[in-house]
């Protein structure tokens, strides 16, 4: 097992928290006339709304290096910045893991934050010396296999896994070279990724399977569905389609990737705030050799034939506001698969698993019910 946790720089929690809150939480003009201190009743005053809550939790996680588990997200802990600082100190003392590098810290935290919710981590040896890292929940069949978008970690399925827990088994692997999966090969190509994921599935997931892909992870999902049709009950494609002109699409993606703001704007209906930590994550992913390796050679070729010869019941779930994959591309892909269905999600972009996880689950369940 790789060693993964060191000490995160601690800093002065209360100082950092108050500074962050004054800079980021005061959204309206009337709010900006006040100065928050440790005793300001932020909850009572309505300063904490659903958006500021998310940015506050992200800040605590990424900058202070402390995970606030679900069961501590209670009104009493958020009455003032003081009560929140007390909670954070308490969690730090109780030895919640923290880390030094901000990007890796954020990545690991995004994975570890799921553990208290009953989502286990697992290492699956594949391809000799490589190790696929996966999130896992147990439960009845069918087992769901959740493949992340290119560059996204297994934890991008976090909300889906939390809701699925207790209802079905599921496995969400990190691709080789992404998340925290380990590989000696720095830049595994698409073929190597498919092979590794198949191996991981053979080890850890019991058929019948429901394969769910996000974005380019859908390429791998479709490939595996094609290779082992008798083990796959259904294929679900989210945020992906048949790209008519792969070179042009690739150029667009490269251009977007050059500017995190534009990428987030294209990918999300409600883009997350571009914090320093998110920016670090973004650069970390783009800098990984596996990123480009996936989209070159066999991966690039797979794009135009991804949806051919599929004999599996297939559901496409597409955000109507997806700026990465067009509605035409989704319809074109569905037209290639006999009997495929498309469900469109309003106010949703490229990543339904992030923006509308419950809605995504709803449509997958409805689809599975029609197959029984």
């Amino acid at each position: 097992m790789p060693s993964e946790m060191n000490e995160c720089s601690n800093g002065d929690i209360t100082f950092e928290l108050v500074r962050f809150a004054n800079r980021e939480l005061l959204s309206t003009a009337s709010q900006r006339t006040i100065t928050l201190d440790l005793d300001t009743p932020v909850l009572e005053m309505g300063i904490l709304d659903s958006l500021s809550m998310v940015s506050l939790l992200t800040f605590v996680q990424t900058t202070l290096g402390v995970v606030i588990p679900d069961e501590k997200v209670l009104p009493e802990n958020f009455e003032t910045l003081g009560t929140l600082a007390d909670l954070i100190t308490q969690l730090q003392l109780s030895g919640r893991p923290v880390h030094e590098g901000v990007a890796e810290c954020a990545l690991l935290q995004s994975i570890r934050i799921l553990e208290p919710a009953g989502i286990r981590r697992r290492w699956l040896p594949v391809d000799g010396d490589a190790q696929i890292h996966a999130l896992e929940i147990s439960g009845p069949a069918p087992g769901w296999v959740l493949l992340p978008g290119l560059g996204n970690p297994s934890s991008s399925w976090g909300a889906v896994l939390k809701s699925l827990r207790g209802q079905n088994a599921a496995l969400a692997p990190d691709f080789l070279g992404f998340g925290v999966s380990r590989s000696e090969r720095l830049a595994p190509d698409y073929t190597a990724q498919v092979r590794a994921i198949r191996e991981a599935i053979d080890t850890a997931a019991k058929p019948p399977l429901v394969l769910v892909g996000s974005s380019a992870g859908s390429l791998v999902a479709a490939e595996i569905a094609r290779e082992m049709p008798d083990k796959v009950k259904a294929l679900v494609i989210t945020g992906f389609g048949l790209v008519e002109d792969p070179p042009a699409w690739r150029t667009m993606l490269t251009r977007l990737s050059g500017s995190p703001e534009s990428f987030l704007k294209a990918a999300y209906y409600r883009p997350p705030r571009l914090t320093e930590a998110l920016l670090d994550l973004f650069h970390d992913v783009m800098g990984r050799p596996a990123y480009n390796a996936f989209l070159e050679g066999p991966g690039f070729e797979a794009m135009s034939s991804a949806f051919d010869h599929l004999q599996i019941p297939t559901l496409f779930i597409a955000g109507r506001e997806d700026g990465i994959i067009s509605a035409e591309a989704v319809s074109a892909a569905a037209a290639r698969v006999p009997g495929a269905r498309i469900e469109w999600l309003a106010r949703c972009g490229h990543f339904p698993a992030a923006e509308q996880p419950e809605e995504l689950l709803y449509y997958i369940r409805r689809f599975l019910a029609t197959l029984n």
Partner: protein
Amino acid sequence: MTSQEFFDVVIIGGGPGGSVLAACLAQAGASVLILEMASFPRYHIGESLTGMAAVVLEDFGLSAEMDRRQFPRKDGVKVIGKGADSEFWVPVFRPTWQVRRAEFDQILLDNAIRRGATCRQARVNGVLRDGETVTGALYTLDGEQNQREVRCRVVADASGQAALLSRLDVAGTLRRTEFDKQVAVFSQFRGARRDPGTMGDNTFLFYSETYHWAWFIPVSPDVVSVGIVLPGEEIKRLGGAEAAFRWGAERINPDLAWRLPGCEQMEPIRAAANYSYAVDPFVGPGWLAVGDAHQFIDPIFSFGVTFAMLEAREASRAILASLTNGDWREPFEEYRDFCVRGQTAALDLISYFWKFPVFFGYQSRGELRKDIIRLLSSDAHSKIESRALTQMRKALSRAAAA
């Protein structure tokens, strides 16, 4: 006066509470008379059922009829947050429907009659008593002048917001409770913009700020019920129901504003006070009350109709037990406790939603998800307190103490 009539049970009101009660009792062999003031079918607000209503409907074998009428299937509730900056979806514990109440209430009333209940269009003027015990009702048939008398062993008040037994001083006084200042203004629209797919058939709630919200409830393939709920004084300030509706349709939430332009308003704007209230006591010797006749709560989670149906089913068990063993006290008090458990759970859930909307949204996706889904389906009457209720009650009492 002609020779005196007798029924085991006289039910005041033929809405969902009265009809379900009548059907359960008649099915078990009791003789039942429903006295309903209105000529059915008649309009009523309250279109969204919750999951537990589907259980009652299925027991009566009415599920197929619900689908035949094309009542939109409700698989969940979408809450769109302030400024449409956030949204979350809570699946229902069990699929149910959103209904056109005129038709739905008729289906339930017909079901009661089919199972042997008698229904008359009549106004109830008073009760007969023997000492403390209620022993019958005085009523006037529609179109007649003279008052009639019917004797019975139990009078059940299912008169809805009229809360007749409270007004007749049989039940306790009606007291307003927590959310007592809201008014709803509403109408139905053809051709409003819905979300794509079956997601668009669900109940949508638009949140603005505390006690300012709107509903958007599909009731047929092309008609939606839209309601704006605001504090009463604000409706006044805005210049009445019509003006308040226009204001709310544009201002409550940008996503609601986007849905309505260009669609056909099918009826004038109506207004209803959402004044929450409770009647105590609501059971006694020879009488009990069901549904809105004893309590009304903030309709934000659409509990009203389903609660009335569940209470009716429970009341039928209590009444049958009292008819069998001749003693009302124990079964009626058990029924009362059942109602109080459910209503208290609903009130606490709603208080928590208004007081801590951020946490409600967060927790409905987190570890309290299952509990919250159950509660929202109106499965709220259990004697065992769920984890969600324990946590919410703790937070509410902390806030009250502060």
